[in-house]
């Protein structure tokens, strides 16, 4: 059985203000404070100089989305089922599906996404689209530098999401 009296912490109270003890306390504590601040100078800053240095992201970090193709055939994985759009709590995904034809085959399935847009200014990066996708066609990437000058530029089209993303953010190594 656990003994709770071991956890009792003796509270050491300093002398009350006023009188010699108070003076001693005021001086002592002031010197302790000065020591603390001076030690920070010797320690050096902990700031990460952001645009030049970046904190590496974890493998499961949810950044900008990526759309994927099959590596062997080059066909898009997305079949335009709109499950991601249905799962999206921020309602920022718009999918318009079209039929594949033998002459004009874009995806592996029956249909393909003729329009696939994600409005990044609305997206909350919850990753539900990734979870909802039955073909792993959409995944969350690692890029979080998504600012732009126009709101309209933040609506990412299918071409932009399919394109090989610029790796602007370092990935944390395994076990780091």
């Amino acid at each position: 059985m656990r003994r709770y009296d071991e956890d009792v912490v003796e509270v050491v109270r300093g002398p009350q203000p006023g009188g010699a003890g108070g003076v001693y306390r005021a001086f002592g504590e002031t010197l302790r404070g000065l020591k603390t601040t001076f030690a920070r100078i010797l320690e050096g800053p902990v700031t990460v100089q952001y645009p030049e240095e970046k904190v590496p992201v974890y493998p499961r970090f949810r950044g900008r989305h990526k759309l994927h193709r099959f590596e062997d055939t080059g066909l898009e994985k997305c079949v335009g089922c709109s499950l991601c759009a249905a799962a999206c709590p921020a309602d920022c995904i718009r999918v318009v599906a079209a039929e594949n034809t033998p002459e004009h085959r874009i995806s592996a399935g029956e249909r393909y996404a003729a329009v696939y847009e994600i409005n990044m200014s609305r997206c909350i990066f919850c990753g539900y689209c990734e979870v909802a996708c039955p073909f792993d066609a959409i995944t969350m990437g690692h890029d979080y530098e998504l600012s732009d000058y126009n709101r309209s530029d933040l609506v990412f089209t299918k071409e932009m999401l399919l394109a090989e993303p610029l790796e602007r953010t370092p990935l944390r190594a395994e076990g780091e």
Partner: protein
Amino acid sequence: MTPLAALDYYEPWWAQLAKSVVIFAVVLQMVPLVLMMERKLLGRMQARYGPNRVGPFGMVQPVADILKLLSKEQSRPHSSVGPLYALAPAISILTAVAALAIIPFGPVVDIFGTDVGLYGIDVDIGILYLFAFGAIAFYGLVLGGWASGSKYSFLGAMRAAAQLISYEVAMGLSLVGVIFTAGTLSLVEIVEAQKGMWYVVPQFVGFGIFLIAGFAETNRTPFDLPEADAELVQGYMTEYGAGRFALYYFAEYMNMIVISAIASTLFLGGWLLPFGIDPPGWVDPIVVLAKIFFFLFLFIWIRATLPRLRYDQLMSFGWKVLLPLATVNALVTAIVVVST
């Protein structure tokens, strides 16, 4: 014409002109330096870099700040009293700069065959002169706060007045010991009297009181109640902007430099070095500047460390602790001086 000061050597007019320009220029250049030093050191003490974007190592930051302030529109509140509102920061800066005149940077030296004292002017009433200008400095703050026509400014000004008056008494009394020991009010002679032993050793109580009162006089943490950004929105300078705000800001740092200079002159032996080291004459101003920067570092260090006092703590500390202590110190010094 009666001379302003008793000169026992001849100093040509051009030498006086030149040295006043040099002292003014050098000390004025220290203000942006102190600004930079403060922001950098505060940063380091809070485990971050200070400003480091403008210029190499961010060294051009104060220039950028001052240029920004000067290029802004001069505006004032409708309820303000125009002429006084404009006059107040000017008084502040004037009193801050005027004290520079008597701070000694070195003894009388031979420059190109002419005897030149390395100070603006050596007056027989040096310390009184300082306190006279220190008293006028109240007008800068109180007028500024009152003429702004804003309750926050007024509250800040009232606090500033109460605080400055309370601590000026202790400050004056803390210097009495030094005056007794040196037997003169002239700053140059006080430095000369410290050959052998700096007054920080026999007058360490006075030194402590002077330093604490100096923090209060310059409205620095932990005595920055007149400014109290969190409660009073900068106190007496709430309604000031652009160049006038820059003046107040400038005066604050100038006051810091002046208090540091006075402390190093009266207690750390001015241009004297310890252990009988006697360097050539051109080193003296550097020694004084080094001592000034030591005190400025102390100012910044304390600012990074201590929180602001409560108003009643400030008052009871000033009147119940510092004032009696300074009086006892002056009395004991007087008894010792008389009995030896």
